[in-house]
């Protein structure tokens, strides 16, 4: 067993309630400190894979180990508090101020009040927001600002693992590009283990150290991004073709 793996999937399958299989026999080891991208189209099982890690879903068979321990050995609540979770819809608590949103887990973990306050301020700086907005409510923020708060909230208790489910998918292209760059800088600084779900090859190549390509609940290939660009795997080729204007250098007309 690989001791440096932060998260390991061993023969994991997941079936929905109606019995249809969503994941088939997934084997995957995510290294400490890497950003693994789960790439695939809708319904390929990438979000399911993510939710299995923080136990929002329970595998039908197989074993998932986080930090070397099987999920069954974890207290689910403890496990989730050491895994930051960022989703496309952000899911900020609309009745809490930004400060309370970010500080909720530290508060539940009984941090002293002034330490929470300092942490919130530090995190707002980290994600490029003016600490002045701490007293605002989520509805008063733009989509990009809300997602920054979502990232800050996920980082609040300094979890070693970060799960991101199409975090920038709902943003306009300019804001998305900016947040992607900032994410890279942040990741270089913090060195978290990140599992990042996207259907966008550009994003995958930008943020990922490795790419796991999923299709219909199966892992097709797991490669570094350089290998992905050279891969002869038909699905990888199909992805490259779909996004080709950005890689081939040829741009007809424009």
């Amino acid at each position: 067993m690989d001791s440096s793996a932060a998260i390991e999937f061993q023969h994991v399958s997941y079936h929905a309630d109606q019995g249809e299989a969503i994941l088939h026999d997934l084997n995957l080891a995510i290294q400490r400190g890497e950003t693994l991208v789960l790439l695939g189209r809708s319904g390929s099982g990438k979000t399911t894979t993510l939710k299995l890690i923080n136990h929002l879903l329970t595998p039908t068979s197989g074993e998932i180990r986080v930090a070397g321990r099987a999920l069954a050995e974890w207290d689910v609540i403890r496990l989730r508090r050491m895994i930051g979770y960022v989703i496309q819809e952000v899911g900020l608590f609309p009745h809490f101020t930004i400060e309370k949103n970010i500080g909720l887990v530290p508060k539940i973990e009984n941090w002293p009040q002034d330490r929470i306050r300092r942490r919130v301020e530090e995190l707002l700086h980290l994600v490029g927001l003016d600490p002045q907005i701490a007293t605002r409510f989520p509805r008063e923020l733009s989509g990009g600002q809300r997602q920054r708060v979502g990232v800050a909230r996920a980082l609040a208790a300094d979890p070693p693992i970060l799960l991101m489910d199409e975090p920038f998918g709902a943003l306009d292209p300019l804001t998305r590009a900016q947040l992607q760059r900032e994410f890279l800088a942040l990741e270089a600084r913090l060195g978290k283990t990140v599992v990042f779900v996207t259907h966008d090859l550009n994003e995958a190549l930008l943020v990922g150290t490795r790419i796991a390509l999923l299709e219909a609940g199966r892992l097709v290939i797991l490669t570094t991004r350089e290998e992905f660009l050279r891969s002869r795997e038909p699905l990888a080729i199909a992805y490259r073709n779909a996004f080709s204007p950005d890689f081939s250098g040829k741009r007809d007309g424009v």
Partner: protein
Amino acid sequence: MNLWQFILENHAEVTQLTLEHIWLVGVSTLLAVAIGMPLGILLTRCPALRRPVLGSANVIQTIPSLALFGFLLPAPWIGARADRLAILALMLYALLPLIRNTYAGIQSVDPSVLEAGRGMGLTNRQLLFQVELPLALGVIIAGIRVATVLSVGLATIAAAVGAGGLGEYIFRGLAMVNNTVILAGALPAAALALLADAGFGWLEKRLRPQDARRTSYASPS
């Protein structure tokens, strides 16, 4: 004799009956909140209970009020005192709006908010008290508002079983064929209903979380 004169001359009795009325409505609504809210929360956790519970509460609503008072009359302990009986009957009527609104309020919470909350490691209890209930509060208050206004009207029937309240005047006036006496019961009851409606309406607006402290960010600190 006009209405105003009647009320002035009988002001002690009017006050007494109004207080009785408020007592009947207040206690029954409080009981309905104490039973209906947990039931509504339970329905969000056990979907299988939804149909039977909401169905029963619906059926209760369809029983004519006078008949319900009559049904409860032979019940032990309850039937022994008219105000107990009236409170139980009013409570049963108030249950449906409370169960339904608690359930609907919690169901209406954005699923992504719950997913984020669960994903960051909130326990079910923390999720309920910190997220679901605060966000559902406006809808729940709306249910209390409906229940209260409904009860103020229904409580006039309680006088038929001798539970007192402003219905006393209505029944007395009907027996005497005296419109003034009927109005002496009906008008204060209508005023109570409007007051309850306005009061809870105000509370509902204030407690709706999206509107809470809207001005707090306006002034730069």
